[in-house]
């Protein structure tokens, strides 16, 4: 029953599996993002209050979601690697961090571009923007800690631990930042029951969300292959894999 789990610890298997999965993720991401973009930017009705400017939500909300999702996967991969001493977990965490940081930057940039017409300013010290910014700092801390060590395995474990500590802190930071009164609009999608967003606007958003996650999976697979090759560059199978 656990053999698939142990297989994940083997670098050649991970390398091959990532290569096999990447095109699927990429293809499905192209379909869902393509549908989401066309339906969201062209066919969805303009918002009664925000007009066409609301359409930036189709990029902003998925990247904000992905910034947290990537952080969580990074921390969990690091935790798995730390607890069960599976080196590939560190490779996944190392591959995931820059992607997550990029999504965080994307969420910040689209958020401030959205803020300009809506709030009249690019940057407001709004709770969600601020906690997103702190999340970016956490990413930077984890990435610089990993590269600060001369011994890579030590850097891996240190970064994994910091990732876990950060994961515990993310909700605390988020809720303490929400202590201030919020400019940001309340949650639109994650309400149980009847969502306040009509289906014509919601479906493209959900499709974009799925598409961004698939895209993250695809990029993760690609980065993971590079990460595995770099880490295993002394191994025989790498030389054979590159020759063939």
């Amino acid at each position: 029953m656990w053999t698939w789990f142990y297989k994940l610890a083997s670098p050649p298997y991970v390398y091959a599996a990532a290569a096999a999965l990447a095109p699927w993720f990429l293809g499905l991401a192209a379909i869902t993002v393509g549908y989401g973009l066309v339906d969201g930017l062209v066919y969805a009705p303009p918002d009664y209050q925000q007009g066409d400017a609301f359409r930036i939500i189709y990029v902003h909300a998925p990247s904000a979601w992905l910034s947290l999702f990537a952080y969580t996967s990074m921390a969990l991969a690091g935790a798995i690697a730390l607890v069960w001493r599976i080196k590939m977990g560190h490779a996944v965490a190392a591959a995931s961090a820059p992607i997550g940081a990029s999504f965080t930057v994307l969420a910040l940039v689209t958020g401030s571009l959205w803020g300009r017409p809506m709030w009249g300013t690019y940057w407001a010290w709004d709770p969600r923007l601020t906690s997103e910014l702190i999340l970016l700092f956490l990413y930077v801390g984890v990435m610089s800690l990993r590269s600060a060590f001369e011994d890579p395995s030590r850097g891996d474990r240190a970064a994994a631990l910091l990732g876990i500590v950060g994961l515990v802190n993310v909700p605390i930071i988020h809720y303490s930042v929400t202590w201030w009164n919020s400019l940001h609009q309340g949650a639109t999608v994650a309400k149980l029951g009847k969502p306040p967003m009509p289906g014509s606007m919601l479906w493209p958003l959900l499709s974009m969300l799925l598409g961004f996650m698939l895209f993250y999976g695809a990029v993760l697979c690609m980065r993971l292959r590079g990460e595995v090759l770099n880490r295993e560059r002394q191994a025989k199978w790498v030389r054979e894999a590159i020759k063939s």
Partner: protein
Amino acid sequence: MRVGAFEAFGLVVRRELCLSFRRPDQLLQPLVFFLIVTTLFPLGLSLQLSLLRDMAPGVLWVAALLSSLLSLDSLFKSDADDGTLEQLALCGQGLTVIVVAKTFAHWLVTGAALVLVSPVVGTALGIPGAAFATMLLSLGLGTLTLSWLGAIGAGLTVGLKRGNVLLSLIVLPLAMPLLIFGAGATDRAISGTSAVGALYFLAALCVFTCTLAPFAATVALRITLE
């Protein structure tokens, strides 16, 4: 000779305090830094006491965070450099007890000392006497929490040559809730409204980090020491 965990805790705390008091200049430096930073703000902003009073909680808390961070670098460093830390790790006591003792002693000579100095700074910044109790309590809880967070960061960066900047980079984002609630509590006390909610939250954060951070710091030290 085998000693119990509490006895070991007491011995390490006593050793740390003894070492600190033999180098009083190192004891004073973070406090002087705290005073200097708080002096910078009136010079850079304005001499109007009313304006200063509005800024005071933030200034006080930012200065306290920065000066605690400065001294955090020395938490494990000198002991790791001369091998004492490895001996302590091998002495048969759990490393967690050592970490708890060292961090607590470190808080006594930096955080608690900073709390004692803060009324002077508070008066200079125009914080009314009625708000002092809240200010002292929030600073006490906040610096203790920060010492725990800092122990994790110091443990992670102890083996690095230039770990000081990285330490701040790691610890400051984690410490932001402290700033929000600490400065918030002081601000409320100054304006005369109840600061109980923010203080409770600070206390909760303090208990939370006191419970979990020692283990995280121990793991961090084990990663960098072995």
